[in-house]
């Protein structure tokens, strides 16, 4: 669907994207990175607002810059919170739908359905100037969806949405991905992205830092100690047994909470397997068993700090 081959993009002396090669295929792909990592630059290249300075980028086999054929099949939700403020939400979405090629005889019903889908059906006839951040975000999403595009490019779409709105959007995007659409979603709210997809593209200072399944990426960094928090009665006795395991690097207690113990392991898979055996054979009971390193946040933190 989207192929990026050694693409770089310079803004004068500043590099926005540096020699990036990756593909985006059907399903949800999260584009992650800190501010200035190059996420928006990559999305602007994909949506043909910019050209790569070097390298190549194609969408459906065509270069997207100023290419209406590509735009017929792309829905883009920009990060910036900008609209024609004097329009109502419905007018804006209708204008964008017509510009996207939705036939005039269908546009009213399609716009109504889309506004319903993004939860704006009851508020869409007020002027956009009076909208809250969350409402504006929903309208931006609606305009990207009206022409039923095969590819959705969403730049920080979760910003400003309340928890219910985020959950609704996540479910909606999962549904669209299940229909076979290619969805690229940029975010720095990692745990929310993690709830939608395991497939990530991680950018840092314009470079591609990691690409693929979160679990696979986590495997690549297994040199870094993986922490596990355990909460249980008799934590000291449990810790004593752990110390003889070859997979365990260290064990630390919380002085204020003697039932809490934190274990560091360099081989998480071996560790989890050995602990599972121990639980079965010795009938151990945990109050809590969690790993702060089993999420995207930690993957991101580890890779960036490398």
């Amino acid at each position, binding site marked *: 669907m989207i192929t990026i081959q050694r693409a770089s993009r310079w*803004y004068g002396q*500043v590099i*926005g994207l540096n020699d990036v090669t990756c593909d985006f295929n059907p399903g949800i792909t999260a584009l992650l990175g800190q501010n*200035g990592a190059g996420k*928006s*630059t990559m999305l*602007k290249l994909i*949506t*043909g*607002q*910019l*050209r790569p300075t070097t390298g190549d980028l194609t969408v459906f086999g065509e270069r997207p810059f*100023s290419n*209406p*054929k590509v*735009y*017929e099949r*792309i829905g*883009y939700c*920009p*990060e*910036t919170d*900008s*609209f*024609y403020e*004097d329009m109502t939400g419905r007018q804006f979405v209708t*204008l*964008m739908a*017509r*510009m*996207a*090629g939705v036939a005039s005889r269908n546009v009213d019903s399609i716009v109504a359905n889309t506004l319903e889908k993004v939860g704006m059906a009851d508020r869409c006839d007020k002027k956009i100037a009076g909208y809250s951040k969350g409402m504006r975000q929903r309208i931006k999403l609606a*305009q990207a969806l009206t022409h039923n595009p095969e590819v959705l490019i969403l730049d920080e779409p979760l910003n400003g949405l309340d928890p219910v709105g985020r959950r609704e959007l996540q479910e909606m995007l999962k549904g669209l991905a299940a229909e076979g659409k290619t969805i690229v979603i940029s975010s720095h709210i990692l745990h929310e992205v993690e709830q939608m997809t395991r497939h990530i593209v991680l950018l840092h200072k314009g470079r591609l830092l990691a690409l693929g399944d979160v679990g696979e990426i986590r495997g690549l960094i297994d040199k870094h100690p993986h922490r596990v928090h355990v909460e249980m009665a008799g934590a000291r006795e449990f810790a004593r047994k752990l110390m003889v395991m070859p997979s365990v690097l260290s064990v630390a207690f919380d002085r204020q909470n003697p039932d809490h113990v934190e274990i560091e392991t360099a081989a998480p898979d071996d560790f989890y397997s050995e602990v599972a055996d121990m639980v079965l054979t010795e009938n151990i009971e945990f109050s809590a068993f969690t790993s702060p390193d089993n999420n995207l946040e930690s993957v991101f933190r580890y890779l960036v700090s490398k």
Partner: protein
Amino acid sequence: MSFVELLSWAVWDLMRPRKIATLVVCGLMGPLFGGLAKFASGSAQTAYGLAIPLAVYSFTLIILSVVFAAGIISSEMVGKTISYLLTRPIPRYKILLAKWLGATLVVAIATMISATLTAFVTYGGDVASSPILSDLWLIPVGAVAYCSIFTLMSALSTKPWLFAVAFGFLWEAFVPFLPGDLKSLSVMAQLRALGSDGSFASVPSGMAEMLSMLNQNELSPASAWNTLAILVFLSVIAACVVFTVGEYVPKDEAA
């Protein structure tokens, strides 16, 4: 989306309250100036001959063209709405043409209304004896010419207003009175050649007339038509090409 729909959207976009206020204020300059001139001179012909060239052509027409045409692209950049337009399956040149035509229509109609009001203020009930009819066909020609040039500036520059104001109020104020063929570089000089039977025929004496006396090479209407047609054609084509191949990303979004 048809071109007519695009055009109606472009006109709607120009009819925001703040822009309508600009239209009204600038449009009233001619009638106000005409009223003052009539009061001072007592002559309808003199008042009209002062107000139309100085207030309507040299101010209202130019300032409205600057406001409405020079902002065609830059207002979308400033408002950061450009990304919506550039990611729609519509060729960029069509968007630009619709916006250019919309701006031209608004500028022409507003300036024509201003000129008509000026005629009523200066001639009163005897408006039929004024040269308003010849001005009413000349104003759209001026609007097309200025809007084309300013649209090109909008496509080329991130600060088109600066260049448009400099062109409209410095270049156009002095170049028409320069000697030799240099005056042909001015749109206003071409309009003067086309409107020699209208209000421009009665441009008042003063510095302008003294300067124009230096110029013995009057432009002919035929050459003025040709020059303006070429100017409009080249400006619009160049603007379409530049807008199609150019990158338009608001500054704080780049990088």
